[in-house]
C-alpha cells in the first residue's frame, strides 16, 4: 500500500515471519519507527481508509482521539524479529512463531539461516556501506541461534536527521561525552547519510570508536536493505549497553535486545520540526525515567516491551490474513479454486 512499509526491511521481516521469500504488497500502512504522535508523520498521514498498522496502543489512542480510525495494533517488526529469534533459539519451539504454526515447518527456522550469508545473497548488487560496516564485527557471532553472545562495551546511536530534515548539533562534544562515560569498546552507529560523511566518521574514529551503519533505509522500493533489522539486532546483542542522546527507536530496540540503556548528551536540534510532536521536551516529560546515563533494567524492559508492542505480536497466519497475503481474501466463489492459501 505504501513504499514506507519497506523501509528498514520491515515488510521483509514480516514476509520471513510468514514463511515467504519476498514481501507481497501489504494491505495497510505499517508504522515505520517509534512514534510519539498517531503512529505516522504529522506531515505525511496515511491515505484515508487505509488500515493503520501500528506498533503499540499509544499511537492508536492518540489517533482515535484525533478522529482517525481503522487502527490495528500489531507490534513492531523488531518484535517479530525477536519472536523469530526466540523461536529459533529454542529447539522444541515454544516461541510465538513456532507455537502458532504447528502444521507447517517453522518459518523462523526457514527464514533465518546465518544472517550474513543470506544478506549477501539477497542483496548482491549493493555491497555499499552496509557490507563495509558489517565486515569483521561481532554480528555473525551474535546472530547464531541458541548461543548467548558475549556482550562487551556500548553501542551509541547519535540522534539522526533524514533525507528531508537536517540535524544541528555538536558531534565532537557528544563524542567527548561518550568517551568520558563509556567503557571501551564503543561502537557508534550512524545513519547512512552521516556515515557517508568522512568528516563525521573520522571524528568519531579519532576517539577510538568503531563506526558503523546498519544499512540503507531505502525508498520507493529501491535500496532497501532487507536485513537491516537483523544486522541491528546482531550488533545490539554484541553490546552490553546501548546509548543515545535522545530516547529513540534504536534505544528501545537495544532495551528489547537485552542491553542496559543510557540517554545523555546534547539532544541536538532537528530542522523544521512539526509542533504536533511537542518537541523532545514532551518526550522527557512522558518518559522521565528513561532519561538517565544508566536506566534501571526493569524500567527500560517494560517501556521497550510496551512501545514495541511485544504483547500484540500475532501468529503468522493472522499477519498473513491481515496483510492480505493469503491467496484470496474472500471465501471461495463459483469456479474459482482458492483452496490453497499463499501462507499457512
Amino acid at each position, binding site marked *: 500500500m505504501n513504499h514506507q512499509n519497506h523501509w528498514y526491511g520491515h515488510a521483509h521481516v514480516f514476509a520471513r515471519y510468514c514463511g515467504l521469500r519476498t514481501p507481497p504488497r501489504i494491505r495497510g500502512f505499517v508504522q515505520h519507527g517509534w512514534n510519539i504522535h498517531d503512529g505516522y508523520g504529522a506531515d505525511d498521514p496515511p491515505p484515508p481508509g487505509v488500515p493503520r498498522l501500528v506498533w503499540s496502543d499509544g499511537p492508536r489512542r492518540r489517533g482515535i482521539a484525533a478522529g482517525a480510525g481503522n487502527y490495528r495494533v500489531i507490534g513492531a517488526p523488531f518484535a517479530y524479529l525477536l519472536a523469530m529469534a526466540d523461536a529459533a533459539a529454542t529447539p522444541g519451539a515454544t516461541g510465538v512463531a513456532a507455537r502458532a504454526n504447528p502444521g507447517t515447518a517453522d518459518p523462523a527456522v526457514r527464514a533465518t539461516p546465518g544472517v550474513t550469508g543470506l544478506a549477501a545473497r539477497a542483496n548482491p548488487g549493493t555491497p555499499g556501506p552496509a557490507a563495509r560496516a558489517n565486515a569483521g564485527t561481532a554480528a555473525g557471532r551474535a546472530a547464531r541461534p541458541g548461543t548467548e553472545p558475549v556482550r562487551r562495551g556500548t553501542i551509541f546511536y547519535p540522534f539522526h536527521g533524514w533525507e528531508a530534515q537536517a540535524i544541528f548539533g555538536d558531534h565532537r562534544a557528544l563524542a567527548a561525552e561518550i568517551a568520558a562515560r563509556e567503557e571501551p569498546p564503543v561502537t557508534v552507529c550512524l545513519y547512512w547519510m552521516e556515515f557517508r560523511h568522512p568528516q563525521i566518521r573520522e571524528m568519531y574514529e579519532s576517539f577510538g570508536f568503531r563506526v558503523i551503519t546498519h544499512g540503507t533505509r531505502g525508498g520507493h522500493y529501491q535500496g532497501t536493505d532487507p536485513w537491516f533489522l537483523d544486522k541491528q539486532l546482531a550488533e545490539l546483542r554484541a553490546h552490553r549497553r546501548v546509548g543515545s542522546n535522545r530516547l529513540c527507536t534504536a534505544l528501545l530496540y537495544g532495551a528489547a535486545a537485552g542491553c542496559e540503556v543510557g540517554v545523555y548528551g546534547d539532544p541536538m536540534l532537528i530542522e523544521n520540526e512539526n509542533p504536533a510532536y511537542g518537541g523532545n521536551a514532551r518526550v522527557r516529560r512522558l518518559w522521565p525515567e528513561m532519561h538517565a546515563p544508566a536506566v534501571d533494567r526493569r524500567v527500560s524492559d517494560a517501556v521497550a516491551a510496551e512501545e514495541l508492542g511485544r504483547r500484540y505480536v500475532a501468529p503468522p497466519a493472522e499477519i498473513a490474513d491481515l496483510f492480505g497475503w493469503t491467496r484470496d481474501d*474472500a471465501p471461495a466463489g463459483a469456479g474459482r479454486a482458492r483452496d490453497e492459501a499463499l501462507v499457512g
Partner: protein
Amino acid sequence: MDTTIEDTADAVRLLGGEVLAGSDADGADRYGGWLLALVGAALPDRGRVLVAGRHDDSLLTALADRGLAVDLVLRNLPDARAARTRLAASGVRVLCGGLDRLPPDGSGYAAVIALDDPAALYGPDSPPRRWADTVALLAALAAPGAPALLLVRNGLGLDRLTGVAAASDTDVPPGLAAVRTALAAAGLRTGSVLAAYPGLVAEETALAAAGDGVASLVAAACLPGPAPVLTDPAPLARDAVRHGLGVALAPAWVVLTCRADDDRPTPTAAPTARPGIVLADRGVPDFWAVPQLLQRDADGGWRRAPLSADTAPRALDHLTRDPSTLDGPVPAGVPLRDLLVAAAAADDLVTARELVRAYREWLLADGTDGDWRAVWAGDETGHGPLAAPGKAVADLSGVLLGPDGPALADPSWSTTLAVPVDLVFLRALQRFCYELVAGGHRHPWPVGVSPDRLAVTLAATAGVAVSARDLAAAAAYAVHLDEPRAPADGGDAKRYAELRERWSADPGHGTVPPTGYAEAVRLVGSLTAELADARAQIRWLDDSVAERDRRLGELGTLRRSVTYRIGYLFTFPFHIGIRLLRREMRRLRS
C-alpha cells in the same frame, strides 16, 4: 377420575362465550410441568384444580399425575377440542368459554392456576375486563385458603423496554409493590414472587445475588427472535441481573397467592431453604429437553439436577444425551461467546486471540489421534486429532471459561461421530461470527464482512489457515450435527449453510441486517463512516493516478529533448550494430 378416552367434541363442556373458529395457538412456549419444581410445594395433593388459559400439556398431565382432578378452561373451541383429544388419557376435563361464565365449583377449587394472558381468557361475547377484575374472578373461584398461581405481566419488563410495538400498559399495577396491594384488594395474600423469563423461572432470592453464570443463563433465555426489537434484549437482561434488577425487570412474575379469608400459611415456593431457578431447556424438541432445577450451594456455588427421575440416556442417529451428567455442581464461568463478544466490542484483539487460542488448546487437550470419515460431506477420510465426543457438539456459547480453564456448560450431549478438532473449531467460529454479525454487535473488523470471512480471520489468530473447502465442510458438519435435534425448519445451522452460498457468490451479501433498531442504527453509522473513508480513498487514488499519468507524459517528451538527440546521435552506430546482431541471431536460430 374419568379415564375413558372420548375423542369427541361433545366431551368438551361448553360454558358460553366460546370462540367458535380460529385458534389461539401462537407457537409460543407456555409454562409446563417443569414449573412445578418451584411451585409444586404450594399446591394441594388432592381436590380439583382450575387451570385457566393456555398452558403446556406437560403442566396439566403433571397435575393429573399428582392425583389432582384438573379443569382446563379455554375460550377457543377448536383449541379446546384439540386439548381434549390430547389430554383425554390423563383425565383432564376441558371446558370451553369465557372465564366469567364458569360456574362456581361447589365450595371452590382447591387451587387456581392462571399463567396465560388475562385477555385470552374471554371471547368477544364477554365485556372487556380490567386485570383487577380478572384477579377477583379467579380469587372467587378458589376455595377459602386455596392457593392461586397467577402470572402478572411486568409493565416495565425487558420485553416492554426492548419491544417496538410495546405500548404503556396502564391495566397492570406499576411495580411489584403495587401488585401486592392490588392482590390484597382482590382478597389475595401474596406469598413468593418468581421472576419469569422465557423458559426460565427464578425465585427472588436466587436472582438477588446471582453471579455472571446466572446472568448468562438469563441472557440466553432472552435471545431475540426474528421479530424486530428496539435493542437486543440479551445484553440488557445480563446487565439487569448483574445490577440486581433481575426480578424488577423480568418480563413477568409468577405470584403465589392464597385466599386471605383463612389463616392457613401463605404459600411459598421454596421447597428447601436454598433458592432455586428452574430451566425449561427450550430450543430443542421435547425428546431431547432436560428441564433442570438449579439451587444455590452452601458455599455460594450452584448445583443442578434434572427434574425428571428418568435420566436414561437418549439417542437418535449419531447424537446422544445423558441427563444423568447434569446432576451435580454447575461449572463456574462465563460463556466464551460472551467474552469474545465483549472483547470484539472493546477492540481488544489480544484478548480475542487468547480466547480463541484457549478454546483450540482445550479442544486439542484430550483429543486423540484417529481416523475420521466425513459423513457430513463427501465421505472423505482422513487421520488426525479428533475432538472429544462432548466437545464436538458444543459451540462457543456452550463452553464456559472459569478459573480452571474452559469447561462444557452442558456435558450431557455427545456424538458418536469421529470429528477432527479443526472442523469443530471452525464450526464454532462460524457460528460465533454469524451471531456477531447478525446481532449487530460492535467489532473491529471491516463492516459488511461475511461471517465466513470473519471466521477465517479468527481462525488465523490461533495460527490456523482455513481454506474455502474447510469452510464448506464446517457448515455441512454443523447441519449434520444438528439434524437429530433441529426444529422442523432445519434450524440455524441449515439457514447458515444456505446463506453462505450467497456470501461466497457475492461478499456484498455479508451483512445480515440485525433485528434490533439500536444495532441497526449503529450499523448504519459504521457503514456511513466506512463509505466516507472509501470515497476519500477513491479520491486519493484518483489523484495518485493523475499524478502518475502526468509523470508518464513527461517521460514521453524526453525523446524530443536536445540532450536525448545528442546522445542518440553519438550512440547511433552502436544501435545499428545491436540491431544487425539481433537479426543475425534470429536467422541462425530459425
